């Protein structure tokens, strides 16, 4: 494996393509070029092609998630790994064929540099009418030549709560007033508010809100928002429709709680990508995603998913060194 750390690098744009209008970008040793249908990633000794919708859906989420916990595979070949301060961009590093033929490549950059580069590329390559954070049924096509650059927020998540959504001074849940109507897929549900009756002097200390209403109003898919945090235990909720446009490789254990409907998960070995099987989660199901897998979800209907993360700093190193077992319930607890 070739691994190089690049300090303080900026993305370099080409002139716009005379036919399609998009710019090509150089970042470290990687070049990124798009045409009407595909993105072509090149690196010393190799190149790889990804369908443009999949690439853009993955890229905007990778930025929005802050490169998330662990590995984000745009597909089986290309992706990023978060080291919390630096980010690897890799090509073929986790693909046996690429490694065997020694065309795999990896460079490490400062996180801010990768975020700036990916954002620059996304802005140039996303046309008005196409929103990669929306479900495919709710947005236009990314195909074809450059038209007008999209003007709205391309990379939008939801500002994370610091303690609990809706508390005084913390972030507010989505609402009609915030411009988030109930999504069409949850129009059959009724949403009411909890009754909150604080005694005088305890206003703001007794608190509740309708979590399902907040999720049902999401205008993005596969894009979690933090709703409640106790110590380093983070509750994220998200609405999921169509497919998770990345394959997530865990650097720690995480837990999924299926609140409504169902999601089908493909599970692979983290290092080799070999299939381990599949999990179908239905409403009320709970399942761990161990630290030694990759997973990708498919949601036939928009559904509500809760994810519980352990955000303890440095945890990824303990799993990587084998100081912690890569699954949550150790043998003696069974």
């Amino acid at each position, binding site marked *: 494996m070739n691994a190089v750390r690049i300090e303080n690098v900026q993305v370099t744009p080409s002139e716009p393509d005379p036919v399609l209008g998009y710019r090509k970008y150089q970042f470290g040793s990687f070049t990124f070029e798009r045409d009407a249908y595909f993105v072509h990633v090149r690196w010393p000794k190799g190149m790889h092609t990804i369908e443009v919708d999949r690439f853009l859906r993955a890229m905007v989420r990778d930025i929005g998630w802050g490169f998330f916990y662990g590995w984000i595979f745009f597909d089986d070949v290309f992706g990023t790994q978060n080291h919390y301060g630096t980010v690897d961009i890799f090509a073929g590093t986790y693909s046996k064929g690429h490694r065997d033929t020694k065309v795999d490549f990896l460079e490490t950059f400062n996180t801010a540099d990768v975020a700036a580069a990916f954002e620059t590329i996304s802005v140039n390559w996303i046309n008005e009418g196409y929103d990669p954070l929306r479900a495919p049924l709710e947005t236009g096509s990314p195909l074809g030549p450059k038209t007008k650059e999209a003007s709205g927020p391309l990379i939008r998540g939801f500002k994370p709560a610091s303690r609990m959504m809706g508390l005084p001074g913390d972030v507010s849940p989505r609402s009609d007033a915030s411009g988030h109507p109930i999504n069409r897929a949850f129009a059959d549900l009724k949403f009411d508010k909890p009754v909150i009756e604080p005694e005088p002097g305890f206003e703001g200390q007794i608190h509740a809100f309708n*979590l399902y209403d907040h999720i049902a109003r999401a205008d993005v898919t596969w894009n979690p928002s933090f709703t409640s945090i106790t110590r380093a235990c983070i509750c994220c909720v998200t609405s999921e429709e169509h497919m998770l446009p990345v394959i997530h490789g865990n650097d720690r254990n995480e837990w999924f709680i299926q609140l409504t409907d169902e999601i089908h998960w493909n599970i692979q070995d983290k290092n080799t990508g070999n299939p381990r099987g*599949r999990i179908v989660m239905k*409403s*009320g199901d709970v399942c761990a995603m161990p630290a030694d897998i990759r997973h990708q979800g498919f949601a036939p209907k928009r559904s509500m998913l809760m994810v519980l*993360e352990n955000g303890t700093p440095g945890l990824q190193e303990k799993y990587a060194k084998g100081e*912690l077992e890569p699954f949550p319930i150790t043998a003696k607890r069974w």
Partner: protein
Amino acid sequence: MSYKTAVASLSSYEKGTIELNDDLRHYAFSNIFEVCNKSRPYERVMVVSNLEYAAEAVRAEGTSPWYTAPHDEFAIVMDGEIEFTFFQLTDAEKPTHKAGAIRLQADPKGKRMGRVIARRGHEVLLPTGSAYQLKAAKPSVALIQTSMGPESVEKWSQICVLK
């Protein structure tokens, strides 16, 4: 096109499937409603465990003991209706253990802070520094985001799919 959202309950749930060439214990696959159908009222059964952190599935039925924890907890009502009552802890009642819920040995002696009535989909803060009690006229379900503590019950072999 109209959609039909599937939301399970104590009386109606359909568990998913797990088909893996791996040790299924590593995935600890369970269903909250199945767990609560087999639980005693207010048994706090762990369905999530992530090092010191946990989520507990609770069958709310009748009136619970009084609980407190040395940190915030959060309850999400998954089915039914639950009333949560809160009292401020006196200094003598403040927990001395490290994490998770613990049962108070007597009714709380501090000021009443208020109450919340929550139904399916509502998330309720169980704030640090308070004692709380749950009350449900009919069997209901809450999932509590917390840490593993003295009240946490582990019975993974009974609740998880193993083959």
